[in-house]
Every structure is written in structure tokens, then in C-alpha cells.
């Protein structure tokens, strides 16, 4: 996201390498400069496939999704315009609000634990060892699909045969019905996804840590600061901008939870894990209410946009820390 602000490379153009008329005709190209002459035709060829994909599978569906949210549509008969009906229904739908609440609960637990854990792992890697092997190891869960992660943990946390409850039993604790209990199911799924994603997040933060100049730590050490104090006074403030960007990415990703819920609890027990995406999917493919499902997708899009804007503001605020 920081990308947009990156300045185009400035360079000296070879004298005479470019016809003068271009200067007035093609001002956009002027800024970045090319080799020789305008490349309009060539650019059109190079950009064509990506542009096709962008228009057909990203821009058009976005507009169409918004349109569909104002219709009644079951795939078989043409979409029928119903105005705000879907939105009225959504506002009055307790299951929708329930799924939104469950999703937020999931996001809060998932992001909270994941961010703290990733930060800890990143700092530990930074301060203890920069071993690439270690970084590779923490990334391994990221290589398996959510489906695989869900199934494996479903097995390990099985009430009867799972190793999870056996381990807990060693510590003298009672069995926990991890995925079959309304209270435990969402936290459990959130933690399963922490397991899968924390290594990736840690690597992003680790890269941010690498950018902090080492002499800052040296200076702090000379002043007699402890590791703990250095973390709060040096690492955290200097990392804040990176942390904010990583948070935006992970929160947006976290809101879109689906796979792991679908394979572990499928929304149950009693809608306790019926996250928004699962409800959208069920409305569309279970009950063929594509219009209603689209309206809920729009709601999700709005929620994500608001979060992005808020977090983006916070990122900007964080920039001052770098001085």
C-alpha cells in the first residue's frame, strides 16, 4: 500500500533519443521516460491480457455484485430489481447480525493473538538468531491449505481420541470440547488459523525489524537499557508503521475466514461459528438467494473499507515515529 507513493525514478534522457512532439502529446509518459519514442501500440499489446482480466473478473464483478444486491436473483430466472429489499431484510435478520458478531469475535481473537505472537517470534528471531532455517520452519504451516490445517487440528482436538485433550489431561485439567461447544468453537478456530498464519506475519514483521538500524540498539545498550526496555522504547515505536500495514492486511484476510470453519464445524453448533462468509455462501448456494447474498457481500465490503480507512489513518500517524 505504501507503493502508490513511491516516486518514479528520475533519469537523464539521452539527447535526441526522443522526438520532441512527444513532449506535448504524451505528458504521462514524460514523467517516467522510456527508451525512445512513444510505446503506445506495444504497451497496448503488453497490457491487454492483464487489462482483460482486470475488467472482466475484477471491475465488472464488483459493479455487478453491487447491482445484484438490489435484485432478487436465483440464477435460473433473470434478476428482478427489488430496490432496498435485501438490505431491509439484512438489517432485520438476526442470523446476519449473529454471523457478524461471530466474525468480529473471530477477528479480534485471531488478530490479537496472531499479532502478539508474530511480534514475539519476529523479535526473538531478530535478537537471537537470523537463521534462515528457523524462518523456514515457522513458515511451514503457511504452506498447507486451511482445509488441511482444519482437518489436522480437528483430529488433534477430537474429544475422544485427540492428543490435545490428552496433553491437557497430563496437567490435570478437564477435557475441553474444543470444536463442539458454543463457547470454545470460535476461539479454537481462531487459534488454528493463528497456527497457520503466524509465521508469515512474523516474517513480514521481521523484515520491518531488519530495517531498524543496529546502532540504535547499540546506543540504547550503552545507556544501559535492558532488552525489555529496548523493545518498548526502540523496537515497537520504530516498527509501528510496518506493524500498521501488516495489521491492515491481516485484518482484511481474517474477516474473510471460511475454509477452516467449513471443514471443522460447518457453522455449528447452533450457528455459533456461522461466520459471515459461511452465511453468504449458504444463502447463495444453499438457498439460491444470490441477491441477498450479494447484499451481505456489500455489507462486508463496507465493513472492510471502513476498517482500511481507519487503519490507514493510523498508519499515517505512525509515520512520524520514524522521524
Amino acid at each position, binding site marked *: 500500500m505504501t507503493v*502508490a507513493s513511491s516516486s518514479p525514478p528520475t533519469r537523464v534522457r539521452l539527447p535526441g533519443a526522443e522526438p520532441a512532439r512527444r513532449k506535448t502529446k504524451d505528458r504521462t509518459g514524460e514523467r517516467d521516460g*522510456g527508451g525512445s519514442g512513444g510505446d503506445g501500440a506495444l504497451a497496448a499489446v503488453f497490457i491487454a491480457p492483464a487489462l482483460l*482480466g482486470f475488467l472482466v473478473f475484477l471491475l465488472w464483478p464488483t459493479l455487478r455484485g453491487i447491482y445484484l444486491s438490489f435484485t432478487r436473483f436465483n440464477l435460473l430466472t433473470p434478476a428482478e430489481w427489488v430496490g432496498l429489499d435485501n438490505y431491509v431484510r439484512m438489517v432485520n435478520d438476526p442470523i446476519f447480525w449473529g454471523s457478524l458478531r461471530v466474525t468480529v469475535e473471530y477477528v479480534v481473537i485471531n488478530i490479537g493473538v496472531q499479532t502478539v505472537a508474530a511480534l514475539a517470534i519476529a523479535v526473538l528471531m531478530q535478537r537471537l538468531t537470523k537463521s534462515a532455517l528457523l524462518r523456514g520452519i*515457522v513458515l511451514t504451516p503457511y504452506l498447507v491449505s486451511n482445509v488441511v490445517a482444519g482437518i489436522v487440528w480437528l483430529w488433534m482436538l477430537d474429544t475422544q481420541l485427540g492428543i490435545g485433550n490428552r496433553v491437557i489431561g497430563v496437567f490435570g485439567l478437564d477435557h475441553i470440547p474444543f470444536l463442539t461447544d458454543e463457547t470454545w468453537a470460535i476461539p479454537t478456530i481462531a487459534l488454528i488459523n493463528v497456527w497457520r498464519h503466524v509465521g508469515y506475519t512474523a516474517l513480514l514483521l521481521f523484515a520491518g525489524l*531488519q530495517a531498524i538500524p*543496529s546502532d540504535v540498539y547499540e546506543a540504547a545498550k550503552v545507556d544501559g537499557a535492558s532488552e525489555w526496555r529496548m523493545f518498548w522504547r526502540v523496537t515497537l515505536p520504530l516498527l509501528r508503521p510496518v506493524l500498521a500495514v501488516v495489521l491492515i*492486511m491481516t485484518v482484511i484476510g481474517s474477516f474473510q475466514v471460511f475454509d477452516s470453519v467449513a471443514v471443522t464445524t460447518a457453522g455449528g453448533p447452533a450457528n455459533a461459528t456461522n461466520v459471515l462468509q459461511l452465511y453468504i455462501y449458504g444463502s447463495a448456494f444453499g438457498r439460491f438467494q444470490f441477491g441477498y447474498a450479494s447484499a451481505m457481500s456489500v455489507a462486508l465490503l463496507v465493513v472492510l473499507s471502513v476498517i482500511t480507512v481507519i487503519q490507514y489513518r493510523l498508519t499515517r500517524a505512525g509515520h512520524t515515529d520514524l522521524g
Partner: protein
Amino acid sequence: MAAVTPTAPRAHARARRRISPGRALAWAVMTAIVVITLVPFYWILRTALSSNTGLTADPSSPLPTGLTGGGFARVFGQQSTKEALAQGGAGGSIDFWRYLLNSVVVSTLITVCQILFSAMAAYAFARLRWRGRDRMFGLFLAGLMVPTIFTFLPNFVLIKQLGLVDTLLGIALPSLFMTPFAVFFLRQFFMNLPREVEEAALLDGAGKVRIFFRVLLPMASTPVITLGVLTYITAWNDYFWPLMVSYSDSSRVLTVALSIFRAQTPQTGTDWSGLMAATLVAALPMLVLFGCFARRIVNSIGFSGIK
């Protein structure tokens, strides 16, 4: 490439000099993290090699109980229905080789096309001069903001109208041409390449198309490989979209097959041994792929995510 900062050797020296209690604790935490990370992988293997009766008899044994390859045999359809049922399997038809092949085809198609087209667009955005370029790049960037889920339902409608539901092409098509991220990621790289390279080739009389394919693309091999492996892993692990689009074996990919395999197991008791064998089969190719490029990817992930 390898971002080794000057602190690295110093940190080592310090570690050797004295192991403070804090440092010991930090290492203990790190070890615990590694264990938590890796235990599920071991547990997959341990369960896959166990028999279902063994698992019930001795659930917490750290080693496989009733060592057998039956789970794998079921996954690959090498067991008769009777045998499978006897060992706690579903006995339904599972065609894992087919799903494996489907996954390979879809992931390869997506990765090759997406990277090629994204690289071409990235080159046009970074190195060619044309009217409206910056504005269009802005539009592409805005596409980063649209969550993929939002496009799923309309894209499904579109794929259905194109008659591509339940085909591998239907699964691949939406991500075949580009992702805003891939374009943006590669554009950053092309912008940072020294222009002299391009100019030297121009002076030698090479056309821009030739320069792109013969000079710049090979120079971009590191970001292309990183992006390629990550794209491959993402495509391979994708579940939601293939679940929407595919209905039958002809287009079923491994992730979807896995969830069906899980749903198929009898109510009397899940076929954990077979299920774990299946997850291993589904996950192994990506672990191997990652193993081959691990260092490169690990080192450039920070770049891909933030810069």
C-alpha cells in the same frame, strides 16, 4: 538478497560469551514455538501410518499404532470396498490421482499465465511510455482494495453464463490474467532495474519485445520465482472458489476432495488414518516445492509484503 545486517556476527559473539537467564528463557520460548509449529505435521504422519483400530486402542501413543499403509492404500483407491470398510474407511469412490492431476493443472495454469501476463503489464507500467499509464495503474492499484470474496458471487454467475461451471478452466479463469498484487510487485522490480541494461540492448538493435523476454524477464528471475511459488501455493490451497465452481470428479481439486473425503467417512467413527494420509498427499507437494526454493522465498517475503 540475503539481508544480513551488521548485527548478526555481533549477536553471535554475545550469545557465545554468556547465556543470561533472559536469553535462556528466550531460547526456550523459541523452541516451544518450533515444537508447536511442527507437531501437527508429525501427527499427520503418525496417524496416517496407524490403523484405525490402533488409534482407538492407544490414542496418545507418540508412535504409529498398528503400523500400516492402509490409509494411503484407501486414498489411492488401492483397497477393495470391503477392505476399506473393515478398516474404517468409507468405501466410496475416491479418485485421488485425478484430484492431484486437477490441482496440478489448475495451479500450473494459473501460475504460468498470471505471472507472464502480470509481468508484461508490469513492464508496460514501469518501462513503456503511453498515454494514461499512471491513471490506469492507479485503477489497478484500487483493485487491491476489493476483497476477493466480493467478486466471487458475480464471477460465479459469469462463469456459469460462459458455460464453464465444473471445468478446470472455470476454476482457473478468474485468476488467470492478473492479480493487482502481482502486477504491482513486479512493477516495483522493473522500476528499480538500471536503465543502462535496456539501453545497451537497444543500441545493439534489439526490439523492446525482445528486450523484455530475453533481457529483463531473465533478470527478474528472483522475484518471478518467489511470486511464482507463492502463487502456486495459493492456487493449490484455494478452497472457496473451486468449491463453488466444481461439482464432479472431472474438475475436483485436492482441497475440495479432502473436505468431501472427510464428509464421506461413516458416522460410526471417522477414518482418521485415511484422512491423515489424504491430507499428507495434499500437503506434501507444496512442502517439497517450498523446500526447493525456501531460502529465496524466506528472504524475499518481507519485500513482497511491505515494500
